[in-house]
C-alpha cells in the first residue's frame, strides 16, 4: 500500500472539500438574501403603492442571522468537546478505563497503546474498553493529544490477534493526531446550524391557530428552501470529509505498523461479523463518525455515509478485493492473508473439509 501517497491524496481532498464547504455557506448567505428580497417584494412591494424599499439593514441582518446559525453550531460542538470532554464523551458511549492488572487481554491492549504511541511519536492517550460490546469496533475521542482517549470493544480484544489490534489502535491514533474528532464535530455542528435554519423557515410557514399564513409565509418558504439545500450540501460535504479522513487514518495505520494484515485483518473480520449479523452497540448518529466502522443501518444515500464501505477500504489497503476472515485468534502472527478462506457454506455443497 502506497501509504505516503494515499495520505497526500486524502489531505488534498480534505482541503478541497473544506473549501467547498466554505463556498456553500457563502452561497447560502447569498441565496437567503436573494430569496428574502424576492419574498419581501412579493409580500409587500407589490401590494403597497409607492417605492418598494427594503427595511434598513435588511441584507446585513439576514447575513448575520445565517452566519449566527452556522457558527453557533460550530461553537456549541466546540464547547461540548472542550478540555476534559474526551473522557466524558467516551464514558457516555459506554467505555471505562482499561485495567491491565486485572485481565491479560487488557494488559496486552495497554501495551499495544504504548507501542503505537512510540511508533507515531504522539503522547500516550487514555486506554478505555467498551466492556459489554461483542462487536469489533473502536473509537478515538478528545480535543487534542493531551485530552485524547482510545477505546476498543470487548469483541475487539477477544477476536483480534496482536498484529490486528496494533492496526486498529494505530488507526485511532491517526484520528487523534490529525484532529479528526474536532474537525468532524465542528462540521456536524455547522450542519446542525443549517438544519436549524431550515426548521426556522418551516416554523414561519406553519399556520397559527387562526390559520393566518400570509404575512411571513413566503419569507418562511424562502428560508426553508434555501436552508434545505444548504443543509443537504453541507451534510454531503461533511460526510465526504469524514470519508477522506477514514482513508487517511487507514493509510497512517499501515505506515505506523508497516503491516497490511493488521488493519486489513480487522476490516475483514468485521466483514465476517456483519455477515453473521453481529454488530457493535448502536450509538447516536452524531457520533457515528468516531467509530472505526459505522453501524447505522444504511444511510439514505451513499454520499451521505460517514465511512467508505468495508470493501472500498480493504481494496485500498490490499490493492485488490479480499474475502472475510474467520474470527479465530491465534497468539502467533496470522498466516498469509492470501490463503483462501472457506466460502459461505451451503450444506449441500460442503464437502466437510477444506484444502488450504
Amino acid at each position, binding site marked *: 500500500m502506497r501509504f505516503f501517497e494515499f495520505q497526500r491524496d486524502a489531505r488534498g481532498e480534505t482541503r478541497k472539500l473544506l473549501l467547498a464547504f466554505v463556498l456553500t455557506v457563502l452561497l447560502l448567505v447569498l441565496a437567503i438574501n436573494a430569496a428574502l428580497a424576492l419574498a419581501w417584494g412579493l409580500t409587500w412591494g407589490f401590494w403597497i403603492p409607492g417605492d418598494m424599499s427594503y427595511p434598513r439593514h435588511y441584507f446585513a441582518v439576514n447575513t448575520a442571522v445565517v452566519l449566527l446559525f452556522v457558527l453557533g453550531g460550530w461553537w456549541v460542538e466546540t464547547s461540548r468537546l472542550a478540555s476534559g470532554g474526551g473522557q466524558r464523551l467516551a464514558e457516555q458511549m459506554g467505555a471505562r478505563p482499561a485495567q491491565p492488572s486485572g485481565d491479560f487481554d487488557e*494488559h*496486552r491492549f495497554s*501495551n499495544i497503546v*504504548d507501542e503505537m504511541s*512510540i*511508533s507515531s*511519536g504522539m503522547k500516550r492517550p487514555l486506554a478505555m474498553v467498551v466492556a459489554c460490546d461483542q462487536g469489533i469496533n473502536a473509537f478515538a475521542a478528545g480535543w487534542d493529544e493531551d485530552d485524547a482517549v482510545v477505546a476498543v470493544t470487548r469483541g475487539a480484544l477477544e477476536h483480534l490477534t496482536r498484529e490486528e489490534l496494533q492496526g486498529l489502535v494505530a488507526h485511532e491514533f491517526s484520528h487523534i493526531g490529525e484532529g479528526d474528532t474536532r474537525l468532524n464535530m465542528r462540521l456536524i455542528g455547522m450542519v446542525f446550524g443549517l438544519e436549524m435554519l431550515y426548521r426556522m423557515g418551516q416554523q414561519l410557514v406553519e399556520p397559527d391557530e387562526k390559520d393566518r399564513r400570509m404575512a411571513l409565509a413566503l419569507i418562511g418558504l424562502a428560508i426553508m428552501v434555501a436552508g434545505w439545500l444548504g443543509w443537504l450540501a453541507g451534510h454531503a460535504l461533511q460526510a465526504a470529509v469524514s470519508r477522506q479522513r477514514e482513508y487517511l487514518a487507514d493509510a497512517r495505520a499501515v505506515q*505506523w505498523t*508497516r503491516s497490511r494484515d493488521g488493519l486489513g485483518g480487522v476490516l475483514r473480520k468485521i466483514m465476517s461479523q456483519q455477515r453473521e449479523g453481529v454488530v457493535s452497540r448502536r450509538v447516536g448518529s452524531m457520533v457515528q463518525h468516531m467509530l472505526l466502522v459505522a453501524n447505522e443501518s444504511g444511510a439514505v444515500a451513499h454520499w451521505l455515509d460517514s465511512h467508505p464501505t468495508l470493501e472500498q477500504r480493504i481494496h485500498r489497503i490490499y490493492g485488490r478485493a479480499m474475502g472475510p476472515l474467520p474470527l479465530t485468534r491465534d497468539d502467533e502472527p496470522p498466516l498469509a492473508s492470501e490463503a483462501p478462506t472457506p466460502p459461505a457454506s451451503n450444506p449441500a455443497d460442503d464437502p466437510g473439509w477444506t484444502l488450504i
Partner: protein
Amino acid sequence: MSATLWVLLALGLLVFFWAVGAYNRLVRLKNAIANAFGQIDVQLKRRYDLIPNLVEVARKYLAHEAQTLEAVVAARNQAKAAEQTAAGSPLNAGALGALSGAEQVLGGALGRLFAVVEAYPDLKADQTMRELSEELSSTENRIGFARQAYNDNVLEFNDAAAQFPTLIVARLFNFQPQSMLESTTSDVERQAVKVAF
C-alpha cells in the same frame, strides 16, 4: 523612496521570512531525530531490565538448560555496555553499528530461550511467565517501532534538506543528510533461511 525600492524591500522581507521558516523547520526535524534515538534508548534499557527477571523465573523450571540461560545473561550484559557507549553519541555511525551487532546476538539468545520454553509446558503455563513473555514481546515491538520512528524522522529530515528551495538554507547552515538505522549489518543473516530436517 522610489516605488522600485519599496517593491525590492518587500520582496527581500518575504525571502527573509521564508528563509527563517525553512531554517526553523530543519532544526525541528533534526531535533526529532535525536529525540527518536532517545526513545530507542529508553526501550533498550527496559528490555535490559526485564531480562534478568525472565531468567530468574525460568531458572526454577529449567535446571538442565543452564547454558541457554547463561548465554542470554552474557548477551544482555554486552548489549547493555554497547548501548551505553552509543547513548553518549547518538549520531555516531560506528557506535550505532556496534550496538546493532550486540542486539543481534541478544536477539538470537532470547530466541533460543523461547524455543526451549516451548518444550516445558509447566513453565509456559506459569502466570508470571506469561506476563513476562508478553512484556518482553511488547518491548521487542517497542524497540522495532522506535527504530522505525527514527527512520521515518530521518526520511522527513532528508526530504526537507534535499528539496529545492529549502536546499539552499540547508547548505548554507550545514544541515547534513542523516543515515538511517539498518536492520542488519551481517551478510550471513541476509541470506535466505534454509530449512533442514
